[in-house]
């Protein structure tokens, strides 16, 4: 066991922190208020080689491990949950399925562009009637002479309209539920692809979220990702490492709120002294800091297992559950420590609290995580 960052991991942390504090932090409130996709920051992240962090060097990426990926997402989320989720979705569920399941041709066609940020990635699994029960999805893919024709409606798609490549899951055979699903690579200019009205979210403003509508979308034969009927496995594997990213986002949000609340408590005077002197505040801060550290360690533990190639679904689900419940608790407590000031938009902690709520819901609700964990605990006995 070694509980310290490697030189490489420390270097990435410092580089991302510089970018986050220097370029992202000054923009974070404005992104939240304007609800505009921060294309300029995504471009800057691309120039800094942050878009292909886990893609191997031979495909133009940095070839770094998943702890580096988690560090990247955490550092950005500590200042902007919005930019964090954009980069996270691009890197994990938006790119990794091609890396894990793509043909050599698909990998060399897409990965260098995703790694450089010339293309932005997204992932389209959820449908109006298929949320937690993803295997019940109804979008269809029909093979014809020239390739595939896709129909259906995907919803709650992060990076929708901004992305250049979507990993889309659709039903291509008569096999029931998971067995009938295949994954496809859909490019933004595919005929018949359009977007629904933007969704107005509680938080993560500036991250595009909405419907991806497939109306007789024609795809070439080689758009199939992985084998036919393998789409559910593609999606689940993508979500396993995706959950490392969401855990890291949650850790970042919690840390950002905690740091702000600590600085505030040291300044804010009531009853003649800084409120940081009161045991009631100290006890809250101690519990917040402890949970944040635990959540980060669990996130890195899952990332470490992922990189060693051992099964890590269980660890990733535990990390996601712990980190996102921690994010909700810690951001809520941060608002509480700031009192009335926590409730107004002049201070960022209410934004962290709004952003944190999403982490308990997406990439598998925390209820689904509990089912995954319990299944593993009860397995085989």
């Amino acid at each position, binding site marked *: *066991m070694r509980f310290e960052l490697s030189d490489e991991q420390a270097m990435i942390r410092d580089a991302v922190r510089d970018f986050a504090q220097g370029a992202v932090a000054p923009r974070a409130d404005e992104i939240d208020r304007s609800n505009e996709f921060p294309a300029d920051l995504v471009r800057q992240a691309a120039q800094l080689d942050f878009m292909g962090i886990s893609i191997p060097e031979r495909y133009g990426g940095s070839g770094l491990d998943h702890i580096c990926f988690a560090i990247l997402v955490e550092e950005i989320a500590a200042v902007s949950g919005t930019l964090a989720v954009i980069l996270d979705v691009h890197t994990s569920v938006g790119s990794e399925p091609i890396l894990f399941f793509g043909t050599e041709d698909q990998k060399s066609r897409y990965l260098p562009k995703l790694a450089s940020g010339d293309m932005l990635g997204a992932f389209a699994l959820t449908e109006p009637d298929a949320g937690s029960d993803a295997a019940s999805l109804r979008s269809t893919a029909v093979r014809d002479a020239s390739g595939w024709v896709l129909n259906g409606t995907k919803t709650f798609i992060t990076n929708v309209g901004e992305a250049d490549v979507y990993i889309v899951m659709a039903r291509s055979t008569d096999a029931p539920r998971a067995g009938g699903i295949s994954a496809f690579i859909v490019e933004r200019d595919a005929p018949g692809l359009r977007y629904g009205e933007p969704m107005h979210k509680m938080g993560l403003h500036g991250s595009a979220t909405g419907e991806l509508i497939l109306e007789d979308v024609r795809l070439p034969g080689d758009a199939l990702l992985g084998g036919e009927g393998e789409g559910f496995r593609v999606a689940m594997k993508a979500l396993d490492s995706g959950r490392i990213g969401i855990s890291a986002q949650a850790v970042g949000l919690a840390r950002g709120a905690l740091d702000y609340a600590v600085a505030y408590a040291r300044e804010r005077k009531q009853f003649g002294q800084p409120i*940081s002197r009161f045991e009631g505040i*100290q006890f809250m*801060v101690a519990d917040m800091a402890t949970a944040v*550290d635990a959540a980060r*360690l669990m996130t890195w533990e899952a990332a470490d297992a992922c990189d060693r190639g051992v099964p890590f679904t269980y660890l990733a689900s535990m990390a996601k559950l712990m980190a996102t419940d921690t994010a909700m608790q810690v951001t809520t407590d941060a608002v509480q420590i700031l009192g009335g000031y926590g409730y107004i938009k002049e201070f960022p902690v209410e934004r962290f609290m709004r952003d944190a709520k999403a982490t308990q819901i997406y990439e598998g609700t925390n209820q689904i995580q*509990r089912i995954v964990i*319990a299944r593993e605990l009860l397995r085989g006995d």
Partner: protein
Amino acid sequence: MNFTLDSDQKEILDLVKDFAANEVRPRAAAIDERAEYPADLVAKMGELGLMGAPFPEEYGGAGQSYLTFALMVEELCRSCASTGLIMDVNISLCGEPILMFGTDDQKARFLAPLATGEKLGALAMTEPEAGSDAASIKTSAVKRNGSYILNGRKIFITNGEVADTYVVTAVTDRDMGPNGITDFIVEKSMPGVSFTTHYDKLGIRGAPTTDVVLEDVEVPEENVLGGVGNGFKVTMDTLDAGRIGIAAQAVGIARASLEDALEYVQERQQFGKPVSHFQGVQFMLADMATQIEAARVLMLRAAFLRDRHIPCARESSMAKLFAGDTAMKVATDAVQLLGGYGYIQEYPAERHMRDAKITQIYEGTQQIQRLVVARQVMNTR
């Protein structure tokens, strides 16, 4: 970052696991019921090299890392929290301060007998009026003819009367506050050492807890540990590391609780199926497992820092805080999962719950841990 054990660690832990499962576990219920000090198991632990696991080989120890030691405590406490505690206190609260602060002569004299199990160690700090406020102790040490004369009463001493070697805190200069406290190595054989009040406790009933009374005990000057006036620092540093052992104990108790509950819920049938099929039960199990994993990584990180001689007050307090609260929560939920059967002594669930409670109290209450963490995080005081 690396979250895996090396093969040497695995090998020695397998040995501890076997011992704990085959020799300790079958005895645990009786040890608890009769409040029986398991002298034979302590002797066996001495033979196996467990009683001085992290001491260097030159002092009769096994030369293991503190991290490996913590995992040993976890395994022992998974079978019997009393047996694990006796070994933990011997090492972390008596052997370790001698190792960290002792002279070569003290190390040579006192460590080997502690490591072999020939002698047992304890720490005598708490007094009737000095619990959390440890600096307010009244036990006095007055210098006379090259010796110190100790007078006072220490209470709640784990290993109390069964121990042979005590690290005792006493006041050498009443005007100096915490800087007037000195630690002494006191032996049971010294005239004037006696024991009263054999506490009848809620849990950890096999680890004797007594008062240690010092009446004109003449302690030679060479038994001063860590220098005159340094006693408070010696004791606080001892507890920084000691808390890792309690965190490990708490993780062990929590794991035992979860494992027993897992077995039960898969056998117990209600409404025509095992209760493990109900989501309400599954969600409880998932939360229990997740909290345990969080506690465990916090504990291991603190132990890693301790091995590297990196200050770990913040990390060990976080570990003790989170693990102690987790043990209490998980053990209580395990009783709940067993329902009426959880409440009766035929099942170990209620013992785990009683044992868990102490981890929130000793070696610094959870409230003191929160103060330690908050001071570090907020840089107050």
